[in-house]
């Protein structure tokens, strides 16, 4: 097997995690950062090697590079741990290792003075390991395992500042919401495995080989549709799709590099990856589920974009923008067909995933550099930073242009493909997508103008440019943001493994670029210099603006359901019921026994004559019954 070395891509970060985790607090100086970085560096190298080797051969078959049985359930079902190489997993390997390496490097500067430096790199390595394990999973269950590990490492990293209550609450929220989504995923896995008898992707993604042994349906949808919907629920949870998105903005409590790596570039696209992984299954057996995917994607992209326009926390703006972009990817997957030009959406989605990883990571790292300099997350406390941070300013601008979809930056190409895919199939979705393109440009440049232009604020100490070790990864990512759009992506990844030529649909492209420019211009008008025009516009929107500012009150609804209903109306009464009904019943039994015994204690009166009376009566009764019995 020529690809056997790929196991090291996954194993090295694990090794780094173990060294840093067990040696936490004992390792000298900042060595743990280097251990982790070197490990992920080698992984990155190996990933590029793999990508080169894999894509240079014309075949796009699935290759099992490594496989071992980890747990056997019965004769057919077993969990394997292994490495599956196919176009999307190789692509993901490249994305994850690249972004990870950049973030690891950046973190060495960003986290330099933090307590728990070892711990940070241990968790970060754990995350990289889990994410890599997730994308190379050979079967659904392996994916689920790493899916959970990813969730935990995300939990640990969000709660990195564990003595800050808001961070603890955010980490808890993130974990529980995604856990709830994972419940759907797990049930979906169970249902799929029940009807197909396998977890294996090799079989599952080859619909010709599959036959579902049931035609059972529930609420008008076939069981397999339900199963795939539930699996999508898992994906939606991780990818922060509406209405399971509420954890993502709060997750920004974690250190900024973590947000860049986990909550922008890699983990949150796991849902997209999941749907893409099972795409043949969705397409062949559950077109309804795919429609749901498209709808959720479209709704989320619009919904998040609207909220992003109103937020003042720099990281939250980016978080909502992430949601919006992932919504794009989901939308593209949902409208996609299978094979040839039909499969454009599939390719577009993954293309966008690829490019998005670069510019979104760059945005977050840039935001990190800004926060590092200003010591605040609130953009109202920033302004005129272009003077203090010229390089960051430039890099941030590149990323903004990329996400806004201005040619020739990478975002333009991938977004254009998505728009083209929706244009061909669903005009309504196309409309939404174009509108969101405009909104995206608007809110990104709103951010940009407020932070880097605008009126200069008074700072506690003069903001400074980020150190080299932080700038370097940003520059690499910026180069990626510029160049990745020119990759002939369709040659590498397509729904059916055949090469697909991507060409720019000019009518769509012109529309979207025009809209994007419009967005930029509006943002420039409003925010270039401090003016109250934006407030006026905001006020004219009235309640829409307020509700967007409050994230459409989704959080409040969640709190109502969890705290108000589950906690107060179910769990508390249950606990009360247990103590006061069930347990009281047991105590009642004891009390009854006690009472009876205190009653019959009276027989033991100490009165000899009573004893004798009872004794003699007893004898007589026995004799009587004997006589009766013998007759």
């Amino acid at each position: 097997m020529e690809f056997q070395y790929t196991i090291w891509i996954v194993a090295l970060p694990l090794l780094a995690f173990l060294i840093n985790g067990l040696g936490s607090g004992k390792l000298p100086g900042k060595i743990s950062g280097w251990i982790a970085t070197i490990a992920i560096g080698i992984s990155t190298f190996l990933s590029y090697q793999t990508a080169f080797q894999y894509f240079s051969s014309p075949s796009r078959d699935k290759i099992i590079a490594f496989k071992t049985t980890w747990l056997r359930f019965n004769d057919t079902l077993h969990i394997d741990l292994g490495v599956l190489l196919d176009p999307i997993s190789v692509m993901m390997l490249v994305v994850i290792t690249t972004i990870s390496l950049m973030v690891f490097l950046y973190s060495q500067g960003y986290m330099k003075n933090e307590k728990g430096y070892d711990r940070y790199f241990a968790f970060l390595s754990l995350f990289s390991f889990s994410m890599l394990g997730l994308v190379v999973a050979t079967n659904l269950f392996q994916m689920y395992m790493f899916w959970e590990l990813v969730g935990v490492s995300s939990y640990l990293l969000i709660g990195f500042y564990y003595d800050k209550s808001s961070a603890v609450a955010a980490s808890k929220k993130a974990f529980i919401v995604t856990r709830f989504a994972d419940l759907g995923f797990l049930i979906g896995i169970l249902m799929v495995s029940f009807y197909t008898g396998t977890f294996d992707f090799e079989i599952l993604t080859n619909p010709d080989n599959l036959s579902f042994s049931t035609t059972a349906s529930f609420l008008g949808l076939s069981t397999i549709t339900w199963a795939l919907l539930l699996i999508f629920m898992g994906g939606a949870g991780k990818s922060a799709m509406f209405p399971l998105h509420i954890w993502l903005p709060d997750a920004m409590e974690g250190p900024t590099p973590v947000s860049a790596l986990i909550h922008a570039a890699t983990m949150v696209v796991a849902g997209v990856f999941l749907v893409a992984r099972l795409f043949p299954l969705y397409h062949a057996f559950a077109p309804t589920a795919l429609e749901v995917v498209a709808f959720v994607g479209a709704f989320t992209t619009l919904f998040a974009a609207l909220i992003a326009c109103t937020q003042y926390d720099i990281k939250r703006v980016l978080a909502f923008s992430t949601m919006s972009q992932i919504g794009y990817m989901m939308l593209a997957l949902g409208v996609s067909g299978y094979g040839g030009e039909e499969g454009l959406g599939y390719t577009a989605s993954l293309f966008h995933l690829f490019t998005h990883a670069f510019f979104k990571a760059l945005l977050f790292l840039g935001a990190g550099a800004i926060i590092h300099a200003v010591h605040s997350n609130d953009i109202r406390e920033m302004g005129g930073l272009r003077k203090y941070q010229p390089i960051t300013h430039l890099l941030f601008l590149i990323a903004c242009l990329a996400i806004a979809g201005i040619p020739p930056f990478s975002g333009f190409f991938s977004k254009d493909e998505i728009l083209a895919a929706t244009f061909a199939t669903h005009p309504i979705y196309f409309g939404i997508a174009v509108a969101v393109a405009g909104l995206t440009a608007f809110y990104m440049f709103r951010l940009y103008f407020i932070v880097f232009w605008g009126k200069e604020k008074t700072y506690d100490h003069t903001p400074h440019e980020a150190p080299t070790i932080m700038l370097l990864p940003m520059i690499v990512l910026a180069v990626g943001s510029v160049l990745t759009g020119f990759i002939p992506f369709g040659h590498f990844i397509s729904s059916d493994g055949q090469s697909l030529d991507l060409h720019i649909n000019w009518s769509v492209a012109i529309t979207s670029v025009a809209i994007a420019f419009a967005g930029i211009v509006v943002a420039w008008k409003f925010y270039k210099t401090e003016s109250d025009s934006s407030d006026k516009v905001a006020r004219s929107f009235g309640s829409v603006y307020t509700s967007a500012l409050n994230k459409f009150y989704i959080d409040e609804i969640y709190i109502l359901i969890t705290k108000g209903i589950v906690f107060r109306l179910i769990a508390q009464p249950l606990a009360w019921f247990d103590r006061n009904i069930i347990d009281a019943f047991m105590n009642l039994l004891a009390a009854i026994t006690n009472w009876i015994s205190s009653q019959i204690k009276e027989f033991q009166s100490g009165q000899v004559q009573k004893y004798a009376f009872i004794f003699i009566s007893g004898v007589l009764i026995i004799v009587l019954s004997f006589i009766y019995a013998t007759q």
Partner: protein
Amino acid sequence: MGTSAIIFYTIATIMIVFSLLAVTSRKILRAAVYLLFALGGTAAVYFMVNYFFLAAVQLIVYAGGIVVLIIFSILLTSHIEEKMQKPDSWKIILTSILGLGGTTLCLYVITNHLFASQPSTGVEATMTTIGEKLLGYREGGYVLPFEVISILLLAAMIGAIVVAKRNKPEGNG
């Protein structure tokens, strides 16, 4: 009805009557005396069946020993002039029901059972036979129970002394 039958029924009547009196009399000393008569009646029955030794023992031990003991203890513990309280009426009723029920039951069994009486073989309970049997250790001998009862009597004697003795160290004595 022969003479012995007449005598028997007379004695039986006496026994029953005095037994009844013994358990109902409200003067305690009288109860003891009535008991003496009932015991005497029993001894008479023993005489009638030619168990002279037994009759003698009955008279000596019971009438002579136990009744005297009882009378002494009455003198020690009770005021002989005093009439005892009448027992509670519910107690009387319940006990009577029990007693009558028991009697009826037994009588029912007795009258319904046909006993195959054996004619007397003429083996007399003479002192010789009694002595041989009591001290015999072969089949039909009672030396073991005899010895055991001897020990029992000894133990009872010592026990009685210990129990009845005033406990010196504490108390008012």
